[in-house]
Structure formats: C-alpha cells, structure tokens
C-alpha cells in the first residue's frame, strides 16, 4: 500500500530490473519461473489533478506563490494576535483569490482531461482470445498484439511482428516525432512475419525481452524468443523493429505488433518536455515592484512601532485616566508586546500589497488571450486555421519584441517546391503545362502531340528521375486523399494514385516534375528502379548509391541501363559538380545557374558519367573495399567517391522555386520599421539563403552585405570579424547586412562572442545559413543573454526549430507542412508568417499597454487605500485604530475597485488597430518595457501618495479639527447640527477614495465601450447602494454597530457633498493638466496618431494600405497628404463622429462616400490590399 502511494506520488520508480520481459499476447508460461511485472497502462496523462487530489494539490501549488503565502501568513498572524482588523479582512480576499485561481486551473485541467480522454478513448484493434477485438486505446496492455491499419498512428510503442507484405516490412513516417517527412522502412523478424492472420498469431509463442523505457527515440535493444515446435529461436531486436507511438503507418495495409512500452512509458510520452516556465518582462518588473512595496510596508510598520513607543514613554499618553489598560495588558512581556505591535501594524498596512493583483493579471491574460484566436485577420482561409494560444502568460511580451529569429523554409516560404526552369545542354527551358519549352519559344504546339525530345533532354530527364532516394506510396483507389497528380491521367497513367515521399522536398519536386513532363519514376522493387518514359517502361538496376553528405554536397547513383551499360548520375550544388565536369556546356550552364539563383530558385546541377566495363570493375572494387573497410571507413569512402565522381559530363541544371509566402516582404519591412531586428536562421546553403533573403526584403539591394563564411580557424575568424567591424565603422551611412554560416558561427561564438555581437548589433539584417537546430538555439541564447537583455522571438515551423522556439522569450510556431512539433512547443501558433505583424504590432501593443496600466494602477489604488490609514495613526497615538470599517477594508479590492480595471485591461485600445498596423513606428513607443520603467512606477506611486494625502488632509481640514463639518440633518430633523465621529470621518475618506480611484481609471481609459461605462459608473453606484444597505441595518451577528446610519448621515450633510466634489476634483485635475501639457508639448507618436480622429484615421489607413510598401513611402505620403487636404475641410464634422470607430466603410456616414469614390478612382488596385 505504502509503495503504491509512493509510486503514485512519483517517488519510487516502478521498475527495478534492467530489462522487461513481455509475453506476446500475454501468454505467460504455465510452469517455470515467472515473475509478474507491473507495467503502466496505455493511458496518456497530461492533466495535473484528479477529482480527489484537486483541492489539496491545488492549494499547495497556490501557496507556493510568494504573494499568496504572504497573505496566508498575514491571515494567520491576524488569528493569533490582537489585531486592529478582523481576520476576515484578509481571509476573505485571500479565499476569493484562491477560489478564482482554482476555478481557472480546474477548467484548464478539465480541458486537458478531455484531450487525454480523446486520446485514451481512441478505438484500436487488439487480438484477444483468438479474435480481433475493438477496444479503447487506454486498455492496451503491455504484451497485447495490436493491429494498425494504413494511415493510422500507433497507439503504443510496438515491436513489429508482421505486416501484410511477405517480407514483413512496413513504411512509417515520424513527422510528428522528429519532423522527418521521409518514409522509413521497419522490419519484422522472419519467424513472426509469417503470422499474417489472427489465427496464426494466436498460435505464436514468443517472448520479448527489452530494456526499460528510455527517452532516446533512436535506441532500442531487445530480443525476441520464438518458440516453434518446441525449440526456442532467439532473434535480436533493434530500433528498426520498433514502431513508435505517434508515428504513422504508410504504404502498408496493416501490421501487427506487440505493445512493448505503453502510456507514459512510451518514447513519445517520455519526450514530453515539461515546458520551461517562461516569464514575461512585465511579470519580472511586477515582482520588483512588489518587493519595493514590501519594503515600504516594512518601513511604515517599523516607523509606526517606534513612534508608538516614543509616545507611550509618557504616562499621560500611555494610560490616561479615561483609557486604562487591563491587567493582562500591563503584565505581558515588553518584547512580546513590541513584536505583536509590529505585527499589528503589518496587518494594518498589509493591503498596500495588492492581493488581487495576481488573480486579476491571471484573469486578464486568460480571458484576453481569446482575442488572438478570435481575430479574423489571423485566420487563414485556405488551411482553415486560426491563431492558437498555448501560453497566455506571454501576451504582453508580444509587445516587447526586439529581435525576431525566423526560420526560412516553411516560415518565410511556403515549403512547396515547384520546379520552374532547367538548363539542358546550354539551353534554358521553362515548364509550361507539363511540357518543357525552350527559352524564346512559345507554347504553341497543338495539345496532345507528344513533343519529341532530343537525346540530351531525355538523358537529362532520366538522370533527374533516377538520381534520388524518393519512395512511393500508393494510395488505395477508394482513398479520397486528393494528393493525386492531375497530370498522371493526362499522360495516360492508369496506375494508382502515387505519392512521393522524400527527405528532401527538392527531390520530390524534381521527380514530380519529370513525371509531369513524361518520364515518371514508378517505383523501386528491390534494387530495380522502374521509370516510364513516355509510356515505355524501363528498368534500371541500382548498383550503388553514393549518399548525400554535407561536405561533398552531391549524391550519385550508379545504374545498369536496360541495355546493359553502367552509368553514374550525380546531382548536387553547382560548386560541388562544375569543377569535376569535363564536357558539356559548362560556361552556359554556369551562367544559367547564376541566373536561377538570382531569381531565388534553388539550383541543382545534374551530370553523368558512362563507365566502360573495365572502369566499372575498378569502381565497384574500390567502393566495396571502402565500404567493408574496418578502419578509417569514412575517409576511404570519401576517397572512393571523389575518385568516382570526376570526368563528368554536364547534363544541365534545375531551378526549383520555393515560393515565398504572401506578404513576407511587407511583414519584414513593418517589423523593421517597428524597431525589431530580423534575423533569418536557416539550414539552407548560403547562396540560396541570400537570394531568398533578398527577394523577401530581408536584405536590400542597397545594403552592404558583409560575409563571415567558411572560416576554418579561430584566428582567421577573429581577423575577419575585426575587418568587418572596421568596415562598419568606416561606412556607417548605408545599412549593413551580415551573412554567417554555421561553421564560422560556432568559431565566432567560441572565442569572440563580444566581437561578433558588436558586428551583429551594427547590422540591420543578419542571415545565418547552414545552421544546425542546436545552433539556432545557441544564437538565440547569445542574444538573450547579451548585456541589454533584449526580448527575443523565434518563429519556425519544423522540428528543427523547436529548440529555438523554446529558447526564445516568445516562441511562435507556424502551422505548416512539417508536422505539428513546432506548434506544440510554441507559445503561440499562427498559420502564416504575415500574421506576425498583426500579432506583434496590434495584439502585442494592446496587451502590453493593458497589462502595464493594470499593474501600475493596482499599486496606485492600494497606495491610495492604505496611506490615509497610515496618516491616521499620527492622530490616534499609533494605537492601530483603523480608519475604515472592516467591511470596507475587505471589499475595497474585491468589489469596489476590481471590475473597472479588469474591463479596462480587456478592452482598452489606445490607438485604433489599423493605425497600429499601418504605422509600425508606434511599436517603438512601448519598447524596452517603457510603461513599466522605474520612472512611470515612481509617478504612479507618488500619485498614489499625493492622492492619499489629499483625501486625508482634505477631509481633515474640511471636517475641521473640531467637527465643524457637521450634518445639519435636514432630512431627519430640521436644522439640527449633529456631530460626526471617527467612523464618519473614515467613511468620508473612503467615499472620496473610491470615487477618485475609479475616475482616475476613467481618465486613463481611451476606449469606452458600453462595458466600461457599465462597470465604471456601476462600481460607484454599487458602493453607494452597498453602503446605504450596510449602514441601514443593525447587523445581528456583529458585536459592534459602528457603521449604523453613518453613511446616510454623511450624505445628508450638504457640506459633505461639497467636500467630496472638491477633493475629487483637486485630485484629478492636476493629472488632467499634466496629460494635456505633455500631449501638446511632448507628444509621443502614439498620442499623435490618436489625434487623428477616428473616421479620418480610418480613411487614412485605407489609403495607406492601398499603397503597399513596394511603392515606397514617398508615394504613400503624397496620397495621404491629398487625403488630408480633403478631410481637413470636414474636420469640424469629423469631430462629431468620434464615436463611430467602426472599421467598415459601409458604416460610415454618407459624407465620406466622396472620399471613397476618389479612392476607387486611384490607379492602384484595391485588390492588392
């Protein structure tokens, strides 16, 4: 029992032995030594709580937070000592805060439970007692034989037993695990692969022994013991026999496998990283402020305690005749009394730490994050995907980004390779409608006639369609996947729908292109590759594959042609092939390749070499020798490869386009205008990267491009860096762009980090190519930890970007083609790169302003709240008498002032979103956490203190040191001048405070929706109604009736009303004056853009989005000027329609239809925008 508990709590690892023994189909041996083992079931648990442990566990977690713990301590102190306020005053808010947080966390956990249940409840087929049984995924136990059909994911880690193929192999794709999209072949053991039916499996007697679960996806060591006809056959099992949970079965009708690791022990689950908690800059400054306030609190408490004892030194103050102490008080020890006095002051002032700050911030983030998902502008119609928020904790960080690190392929580009052009034997061709058209010729040949390709062209196409490592997946005819190529029918293919799978999208694009043109790769069978060239099937025997590697940057195949000749086809980067070519149109091809690269196409060069029989024997011998070498195999292989891949005959070059995503250029330009530096980190080679960089506007043509490439040694690298730094210094007029490759980067980072940073900071664009995933993360960390501590954002779509996404302050996943890995590990996920600009410039800006004001306002209102209480101590002998009634103390933060700020922080829009998007420069206004800088914090805090002084001394003076401000009680009895007591005084201060604090927020509010009106005026009204009600009853369970009719008496006095009005106005009008003066004398650009009245802004923004960025700023401003002239005439009436901030054109007044007609007349097409 105890062990079970410990296991549940995760103290004990459940396994002790090094291996686990799995009896296939759970047929345990009837005799012999059998030790039952416990395995986890196949449940995936991502939820944190269960119904039973929710309350204790959640409470425990919540009180681990410093603030909550602090209030718990205060509450306990109140229970223990003789306190000025009842324990309820801090107990109730604490309870409220804890409950709200618990509800939120409970809801989130419920969502996780639901997701878990969906996964755990997915139907699976399991072989049980001789038949195929459908059950739920969670019921799979270790040892069960599971059947998985095509295109299903594996529900657990399975050891492959058999597939529908005779050789017992199957293909899977692990895109969702590691992002690799190519097909992988997995094998089964010969003894089990024959068991292709349930009945055969039923007869199978086998035991799998394997290691205990571990996280490494590529490691699996085990063996299977099959008992056949009484004898035991032992076979080794490796990773190629293991089908991982989460991978998908492809190209194979069905497989049977035995579950080896289930549930949380599967490799996928073990790879679940508990996401490192990212904390936003706002939260960090919030904590700093809290500490400052804690210091203020301690200071006030210590000061009060000391002053109290200073006063008490004299008997006449300590114990006058009218106010004697009890015996107990007189006799208690002075030290204890001192401590309890200190604690009492602490309790009295503890409200200066805003208790509801955290819960409000949390609610704001949680509720506010819905707006991202709801935004139509972040919705991608084609893929039907909306933006997705994984962590609402970082909303405001989106408004603080200084560096954007972006992946290239799939993020800036579509990751949809399209074959565009090729160069064959010195002639350029374009692909038009599935035909190759030589340059200069139009596609006017009548349709249907098969173009006759001359020898070189055919050879080129054969080379392209044979020299690759593509695999084919045949779709079943009844499958409705629309991936089939329409051209396959046009070209007379009657075969099934084919889908190519390749680890490189370029290869896939090339093979698909040759298929369209007429030379189709139809599959490989063993070592025979089949192509259909214009309907004629050809079989090539694959003799050798010279695999691709990053150093050679090319790959080759050696084939035996149908006619028996041996030929080598090679393809690779032009710098890796052209030097080894001896024949063919080398110069022309080189020119073409450069042209392609300039167009941003990814280029590959194709060459071939025909072997004479003698040559081939030599080649074969060398290759085999190298492959079987026991020592220095790598070197010898390299040597052999370079021996073989020479004297090539150049066939031609291909140009494959990776289409840029929509509006990438505008987005990057907008980000740059917003003061964000964009770094492109890519695994691509430097030429392609630079050309894409140029075409997407990351690099400008006018930019001076610095290079740090192929540095081989430390010194060389340092020298180059110094040279670059010098060049930047000499020429600081033009912008610089830096290109670094992975190898040089690692050198630069190893020794010369500072120098490198120096260079980088002075470059307006940086491009890092040939980056390994880990290097990407390293670059991010380098920037993150640099002295300025900039806020970084990483955006990517593939598994190789995950480390970078997790490293950066904000990680954004693109929902692209390369699996969901990036999305799952990101904080936010969007469908397209272009959405980034709205996400940052609009949502980020809003969230930041909202939360910054929220935080500052919270501190402000609590200073206002508690400082009068502190001041009152000077007038009551530091006796810890409260100024306000306990109920007011309790409800101030949770009722009277909570909702307006929450609504503000959800709906505030300082500037119209369109202006924000169209004027990226506004983003700079909030950079560097400017709204939470120490200066603004000081401003708010001092403002709080000032207001508190005005509340207190205003009431003090107006009420008089005598009770001159007295109700004349006209309502109750004519002309009676009645006196006020201390509670009335406190209520006056409190009333003034509630009104002022609420109105102060109203002054900050720029965007008054009906909800703002409702909660602002509602809060004040609620305060009055509540006070009337609270003071109107003798409360049966309270032992003092201090507040009875106090509020009514206060309000029935005319001068009280006069006092309230004058104090509120005195507090607020300097603030208004300050705002107006700053706006006029030192306007921020945000404020400037506010002063564009709403309808004006609207038309203006329409205008600006018309002239897209390619047209340059000058054209834009000219148009804007024109517009301004037109709208300038109607400014007077425009002022009247401040309220109509609706974006749609149709909703604006008829008046503006004039403008619209002018807009439509303008030469620029509106459809651009």
């Amino acid at each position, binding site marked *: 029992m105890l062990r079970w508990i410990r296991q549940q709590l995760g103290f004990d690892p459940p396994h002790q032995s090094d291996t686990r023994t799995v009896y296939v189909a759970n047929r345990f041996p009837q005799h012999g030594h059998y030790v039952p083992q416990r395995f986890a079931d196949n449940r995936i648990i991502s939820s944190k709580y269960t119904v039973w442990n929710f309350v204790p566990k959640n409470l425990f977690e919540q009180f681990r937070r410093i603030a909550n713990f602090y209030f718990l301590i205060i509450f306990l102190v109140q229970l223990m000592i003789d306190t000025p306020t009842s324990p309820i005053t801090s107990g109730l808010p604490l309870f409220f805060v804890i409950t709200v947080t618990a509800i939120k966390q409970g809801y989130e956990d419920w969502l996780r439970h639901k997701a878990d249940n969906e996964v755990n409840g997915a139907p699976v087929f399991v072989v049980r007692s001789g038949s195929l049984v459908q059950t739920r995924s969670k019921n799979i136990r270790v040892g069960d034989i599971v059947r998985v059909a095509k295109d299903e994911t594996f529900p657990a880690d399975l050891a492959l037993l058999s597939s529908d193929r005779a050789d017992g192999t199957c293909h899977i794709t692990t895109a969702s695990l590691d992002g690799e999209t190519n097909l992988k072949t997995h094998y089964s053991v010969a003894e089990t692969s024959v068991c292709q039916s349930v009945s055969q499996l039923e007869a199978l007697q086998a035991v799998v022994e394997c290691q205990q679960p571990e996280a490494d996806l590529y490691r699996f060591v085990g063996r299977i013991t099959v008992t056949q006809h009484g004898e035991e056959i032992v076979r080794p099992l490796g990773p190629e026999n293991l089908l991982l949970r989460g991978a998908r079965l492809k190209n194979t009708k069905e497989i049977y496998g035995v579950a080896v690791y289930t549930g949380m022990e599967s490799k996928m689950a073990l790879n679940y990283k508990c996401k490192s908690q990212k904390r936003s800059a706002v939260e960090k400054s919030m904590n700093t402020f809290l500490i400052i306030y804690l210091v203020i609190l301690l200071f006030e408490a210590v000061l009060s305690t000391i002053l109290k004892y200073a006063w008490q030194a004299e008997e*006449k103050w300590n114990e006058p005749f009218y106010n004697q102490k009890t015996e107990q008080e007189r006799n208690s020890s002075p030290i204890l009394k001192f401590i309890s006095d200190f604690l009492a002051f602490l309790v009295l002032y503890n409200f200066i730490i805003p208790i509801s700050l955290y819960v409000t911030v949390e609610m704001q983030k949680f509720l506010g994050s819905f707006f991202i998902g709801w935004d139509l502008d972040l919705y991608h119609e084609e893929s039907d995907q909306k933006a997705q928020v994984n962590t609402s904790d970082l909303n405001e960080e989106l408004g603080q980004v200084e560096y954007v690190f972006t992946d290239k392929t799939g993020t800036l580009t579509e990751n949809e390779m399209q074959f565009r052009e090729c160069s064959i034997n010195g002639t350029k061709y374009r692909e038009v409608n599935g035909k190759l058209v030589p340059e200069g010729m139009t596609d006017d040949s009548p349709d249907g006639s098969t173009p006759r390709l001359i020898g070189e062209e055919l050879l080129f196409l054969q080379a392209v369609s044979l020299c690759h490592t593509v695999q084919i997946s045949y779709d079943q005819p009844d499958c409705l996947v629309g991936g089939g190529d329409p051209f396959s029918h046009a070209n007379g293919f009657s075969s099934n729908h084919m889908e190519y799978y390749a680890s490189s999208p370029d290869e896939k694009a090339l093979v698909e292109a040759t298929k369209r043109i007429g030379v189709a790769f139809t599959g490989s069978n063993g070592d025979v590759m089949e192509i259909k060239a214009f309907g004629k099937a050809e079989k090539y025997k694959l003799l050798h594959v010279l695999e691709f590697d990053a150093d050679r940057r090319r790959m080759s195949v050696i084939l035996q042609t149908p006619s028996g000749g041996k030929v080598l086809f090679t393809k690779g980067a032009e710098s890796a092939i052209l030097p080894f070519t001896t024949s063919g149109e080398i110069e022309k091809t080189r020119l073409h390749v450069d042209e392609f690269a300039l167009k941003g196409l990814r280029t590959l060069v194709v060459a071939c070499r025909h072997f004479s029989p003698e040559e081939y024997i030599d080649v074969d011998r060398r290759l085999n020798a190298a492959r079987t070498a026991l020592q220095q195999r790598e070197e010898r292989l390299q040597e052999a490869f370079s021996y073989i891949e020479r004297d090539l005959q150049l066939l031609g070059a291909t140009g494959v386009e990776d289409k840029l995503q929509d509006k990438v250029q505008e987005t990057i330009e907008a980000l740059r205008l917003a003061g964000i530096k964009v770094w492109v980190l890519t695994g691509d080679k430097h030429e392609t990267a630079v050309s894409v960089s140029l075409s997407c506007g990351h690099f400008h043509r006018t930019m001076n491009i610095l290079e740090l490439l192929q540095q081989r040694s430390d010194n060389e690298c340092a020298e180059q860096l110094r040279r670059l730094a010098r060049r930047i210094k000499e020429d600081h007029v033009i912008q610089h762009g830096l290109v670094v490759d992975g190898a040089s980067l690692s050198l630069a980072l190893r020794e010369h980090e500072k120098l490198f940073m120096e260079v980088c900071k002075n470059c307006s664009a940086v491009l890092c190519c040939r980056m390994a995933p880990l290097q990407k993360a390293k670059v991010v960390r380098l920037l993150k930890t640099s002295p300025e501590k900039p806020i970084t954002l990483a955006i990517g779509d593939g598994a190789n970007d995950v480390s970078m996404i997790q490293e950066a302050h904000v990680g954004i996943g693109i929902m692209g083609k390369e699996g969901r890995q990036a999305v799952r590990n990101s904080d936010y996920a969007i469908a397209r790169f272009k959405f980034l600009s709205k996400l940052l410039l609009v949502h980020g800006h809003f969230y930041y302003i909202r939360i910054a004001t929220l935080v500052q306002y919270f501190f402000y209102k609590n200073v206002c709240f508690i400082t009068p209480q502190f001041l009152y101590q000077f007038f009551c002998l530091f006796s810890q008498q409260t100024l306000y009634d306990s109920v007011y103390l309790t409800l101030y933060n949770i009722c009277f002032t909570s909702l307006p700020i929450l609504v503000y922080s959800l709906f505030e829009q300082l500037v119209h979103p369109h202006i924000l998007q169209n004027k990226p420069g506004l983003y700079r206004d909030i950079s560097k956490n400017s709204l939470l800088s120490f200066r603004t914090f000081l401003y708010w805090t001092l403002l709080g203190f000032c207001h508190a002084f005005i509340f207190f001394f205003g009431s003090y003076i107006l009420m008089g040191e005598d009770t001159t401000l007295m109700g004349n009680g006209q309502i109750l009895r004519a002309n009676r001048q009645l006196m006020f007591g201390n509670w009335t005084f406190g209520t006056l201060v409190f009333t003034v405070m509630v009104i002022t604090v609420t109105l102060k927020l109203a002054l900050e509010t720029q965007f008054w929706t009906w909800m703002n009106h409702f909660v602002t005026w509602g809060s004040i009204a609620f305060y009055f109604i509540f006070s009337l009600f609270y003071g109107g009853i003798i409360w049966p369970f309270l032992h003092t009736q201090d507040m009875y009719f106090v509020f009514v008496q206060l309000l029935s006095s005319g001068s009280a009303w006069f006092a309230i009005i004058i104090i509120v106005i005195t507090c607020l*009008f300097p603030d208004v004056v300050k705002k107006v003066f700053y706006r006029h004398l030192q306007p921020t650009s945000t404020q400037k853009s506010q*002063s564009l009245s709403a309808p004006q802004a609207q038309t203006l923004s329409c205008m600006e989005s018309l002239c897209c960025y390619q047209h340059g700023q000058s054209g834009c401003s000219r148009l804007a000027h024109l517009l301004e002239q037109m709208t300038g005439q109607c400014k007077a009436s425009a002022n009247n329609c401040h309220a109509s901030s609706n974006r749609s054109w149709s909703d604006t007044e008829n008046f503006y239809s004039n403008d619209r007609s002018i807009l439509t007349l303008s030469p620029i097409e509106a459809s651009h925008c």
Partner: protein
Amino acid sequence: MATSYNAKDEDGHITVSGPSGGTLRSKKPENTAFKQQRLPAWQPILTAGTVLPAFFIIGLIFIPIGIGLYVTSNNIKEFEIDYTGVDMSSPCFNCSQSFSWNSTRPCTCTIPFYLDQPYESNVFMYYGLSNFYQNHRRYVKSRDDNQLNGDPESLKGPSKECEPYAKHDNKPIAPCGAIANSMFNDTLELFYNDPNGTKIQIPLNKTGIAWWTDKHVKFRNPEGNNHNLTAVFQGTTKPVNWRRPVYELDDDPENNGFINEDFIVWMRTAALPTFRKLYRIIPRKSSMVPTLPSGNYTLEVVYNYPVRSFEGRKRMILSTISWMGGKNPFLGIAYMTVGSVCFFLGVVLLIIHHKYGNRNNSADISN
C-alpha cells in the same frame, strides 16, 4: 483595409470552395464586433481643445460657489471660551487644582463673557475637549453595542471588549467600557446679565442633540418601555467614574438610561484628539427677538471633569449654523482656489491650444 469588406469577400470564397467546405465545420472565427475587438466605443482624447471648456466651466462654477460658501461661513457667529482654569487668574483655577473623583461637594466656577453681536435663530452650545484621544483603539472598541441596544444578556455579562471596565465588585457595569466610563460630566449653565442688573437663566434644550437613529434604534434601554429603570438596572453597578447610576441621568424618562442624549453624543467617538460635541440647543424665541442678544453673560460651570492630567483643555462654544453646517471658511477657500486655478489654467491652455494645437493636428508621425 476595411475588414468587414474583406470578410464579405472571404465569405463568398467559402461558398465556392465546394462540398468539402460545407461538410466540415470551419474553424473560422465569427465576425462579430465583440470578437474582433471593434465594439462601438467613445474615444475621448484629452487635448487642450476638449479640456478647455471643462476648465472654464469648473472655474466659472467653483468661484461663485466658493464665494457663497465663504460668505455663508463668515456670517456664522461663533463664540468660544476656554474654562479649563490653567491660569492663576482664571475663575476655574481652584476647581481644576482641587480635583478628586470622590469629592462629594461639587466645585463650581463662574465665567463672565460678552457677546458683541446678537445671535439669531437657533444657537448651538458645544463643549470642546483637546488632547483627548477618543480615537485610541483601546478606547474605541471598549464598548458593548449589544448592551447599549438593550440586550438583557449583555447587560448582565458585558463583552470582554469592555475590559477593564466590564465589572466592578463582581457586578456588571452598565454601561460598560472605557467610553462610557469617561463620559463628560461638567454641567454648563448660561445666564444673561440684563443691563438692569437681573440675571436671567437661558433655557437650554437637552434633546435633539443626538442622531435620531441612534436615539431610537441603536440605543435602547433594557426591557423596552419599562419606565422603572431602577428595577431594570438592578444587579448592575454604575461606571467607576460616574457619580450617579445610568438610570438617574435625567428626570425625563425619554432621556434617561441608555437613551440619554448626552450619553449618546459622548458614545460617538470623535475622529481627532481635538473635538467638540453638541451639548445643548438654545431654541429661538421668535423671529423678532434675537435668541442671544448682545451683552454680558455668565457661564456657570459645575467643574467635574479632570483634563489637567493629560494637558487637556475644556471649552464652551456658542454657534449659529447655516444651511451648510457650522463655521468652516476652508470649504469656501478651497472652492475659490481650485476655481481660480482652473480658470487660470484654462487661459494657459487656450494659449497653448492656439499656438500648438494646429501644428499638432497636421503633424504626421515619422516612421
């Protein structure tokens, strides 16, 4: 870009996109004003132009109000006399020196004073105390509202908040607590010295000085309407410092016991250490004759209340009131000050608006 325009465009697109789009529920967010964060809103901008009128209006309203308040306050007549007896010359010096709680013979002193203006309408008479901390926490909570509300159980067993004034000689104290115990017990009487030499006592109203709700709801004698208060308070003892038990505070049964108005007024603890409390009301006789004509008066004090031990002061105040309460020049001054500052700033803003306003509007944001 006009979003609604755009959205309509996309909507059209969806219908074209074929049956697959129709069968699958689109994840497309709804195009509602709320979800797209474009709820209709009022967007006020604080510029000189918008603030200007407000400032002028505030100025124009506040200055007259301030003047009105100031004049009203100045019209209120107030007379104050300190009878503590600190100085040797003071008539009450002897009484203040020879104080003891259990002296049987009350000490009286007579203070003459002169009113140079006649006091019309109702005149309010206060006593004022200084350096008396009614707002000390130990003091404020030292009361039992249940007892004062006539709860019989609390009468016999006062709350422990009343300590050390809860019990005396093992008998419960009624009313218990430090506040009640230290009730102000000087008796003040006012005489008008007629020019012809006679001394006329001025009638003082003891009732109507407490809040109506206090007298009728919050404070109640035990056993409601039983007029025999002596029997009701049987078994309790008087507060230590009191000379008489609570049921002998007044002859009038409506003003005796816990509902004695002097007692109720005292029980409302003052906010600050220097305070005044309403003592009596001098009702006006008729609209013809001033309530207190100018002339010589005598204040006769039965000096019971010791304040010298804590350097306190005792005062007697006579005051008329206006519609806005007692004399308080500050309110008027505050209104006049704020009003004029607003007005002045309004002028400054007008200048700013004139000079910078136009430029500001046309200025574009440099990206």
